[in-house]
């Protein structure tokens, strides 16, 4: 007799790589992937500080999404699911690769900045900003990253983080207050909720 578990993962893990098969679904995985890829990389960068790590993170999240596509394509917001996976994995990735990520950040910065002074300045500003975000407690950092990257209302961020709208507002309030202090900026705590 089988005493077997892991069905929710297992059906996904057996998914065939044939891309044509997913076109039967309400939204094909391919179009979902194309649409969301750069947003996931941006989120990964915000939470890890490394572009290569961000791309890795995004790709791993999409691999998980592809495996679970028969299930998550039925969700109202598959995008929220894949962001939650990326946000959760970013935490452990950052713990594991903190030292490496710092090195990669420097390399990636050089690659990205090129010679354009304005681009250089903007990229440095962004790097400084996200560094400060990553200094926040984990849930605050995730909420703030989603808030500024996606421009979403707090209810949608709550869907990604798997908590209540009120909790997200609290995370954002505390996070932005700390950020303003650390970055020497006026709080300007407007909301989009």
């Amino acid at each position: 007799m089988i005493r077997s578990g892991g069905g929710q993962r297992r059906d996904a893990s057996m998914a065939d790589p044939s891309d044509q098969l997913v076109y039967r679904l309400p939204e094909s995985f391919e179009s979902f992937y194309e649409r969301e890829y750069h947003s996931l990389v941006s989120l990964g960068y915000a939470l890890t500080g490394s572009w290569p790590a961000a791309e890795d993170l995004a790709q791993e999240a999409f691999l998980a999404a592809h495996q679970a596509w028969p299930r998550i394509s039925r969700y109202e917001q598959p995008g929220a699911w894949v962001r939650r996976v990326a946000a959760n994995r970013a935490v452990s990735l950052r713990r594991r690769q903190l030292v490496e990520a710092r090195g990669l950040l420097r390399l990636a910065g050089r690659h990205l900045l090129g010679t354009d002074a304005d681009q250089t300045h903007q990229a440095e500003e962004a790097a400084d900003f996200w560094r400060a975000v990553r200094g926040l407690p984990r849930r605050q950092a995730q909420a703030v990253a989603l808030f500024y990257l996606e421009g979403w209302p707090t209810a949608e961020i709550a869907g990604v983080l798997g908590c209540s709208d009120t909790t997200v507002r609290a995370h954002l309030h505390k996070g932005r207050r700390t950020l303003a202090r650390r970055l020497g900026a006026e709080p300007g705590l407007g909301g989009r909720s």
Partner: protein
Amino acid sequence: MNLESRGRQVGQVTRQLAEARGPVPPFALVRRRHRRRAWRQAALVAAAVVAVAALVMVQVRQQASEEVTSRPRSFGRVATTIHLGGQLSVVRADAAGVWVQRDREVVRVDPRTNRVTARLPMSPSDSELGAVGDGSLWLTHIAQGTVTRVDPATGRTVATIGVPGGDNAPVSMSMAVGPGAVWVDYDLGGTGVVRIDPATNTVATAVKLAKTPAGLAASDRAVMVLTRESGVVYQIDPATNRVVASIPVCRESKAVAYAAGVFWIGCDEGTLLRIDPVTHRVAATVELGPATGSAGGVGADDGAVWVAGLGDVLVRVDPRSNTVVGSGSVTGPAGSYITDMTVGSDAVWLTTSQGTLVRFDPDS
């Protein structure tokens, strides 16, 4: 510039920088690259496992060759293909029949007639069929972190049980039914396993794990918990509800099943591990062959171990000799793939991406 303006501007710049890194890479390329990396990492672990297992295998094979009296003549055959339609994502079997999750309902197939005899809508509708056992269907609901017990005769919800911390919406949940216990693992970014008492429909105990769980199987004497990409499985003693062993296995274990005193673990690199719960060791490593790919599903009974590989390949392993008896494509039309499998009623049952339930009868 205030924080609000700066944050929005940084958000836009970050998105532009992400796009400037290049176009979206083809997904097929992404998958190949990650698979190659996983292979490389797994190869190191596998080499060590194989070296240790080699000595054990020699002993096991010698013993098995003495015990084998009649080896299966061949692989088996597809007995029937039942078209159910919709998306079939989970299949389970018990004495009452074969249960298949089709979209947002569970259908029961009578193994004597191969016909659908019941349809039960799932509540909540976005639940998953986790397990069958103790005369019930057990559904998981990831977003709420709950387990729902359903009476299969009426479709009525008998109980809804929350896992500790489940309101943080776990990334995955898996279930296994053992004697007098329903075991649920869940991933909240590194959590553990809970034991539900089916007599009271309450969480009896929670077992904290150091690694993130990723599937489990249960017997009367042991519960084996897979972990995500960490190269170990945990063995829990159901008598004490404590972890009694952390067993080194392949880097990414994908599925686990129990039969005849042995746990079988399918690995991403295309191997099947035989785990002895008494010695807490890998007793044998079965190479499944290059056509199998990742061993994504495992089912077993006293006579055979079945592995569903990536795509449409089913592999039969003889548990007495720990060798592959045969393998082949079982899903029908080219391009279709296996979405789940289980063993019961003297058959292997496989759901496919084409909306069919395949009944595979083994040769004895």
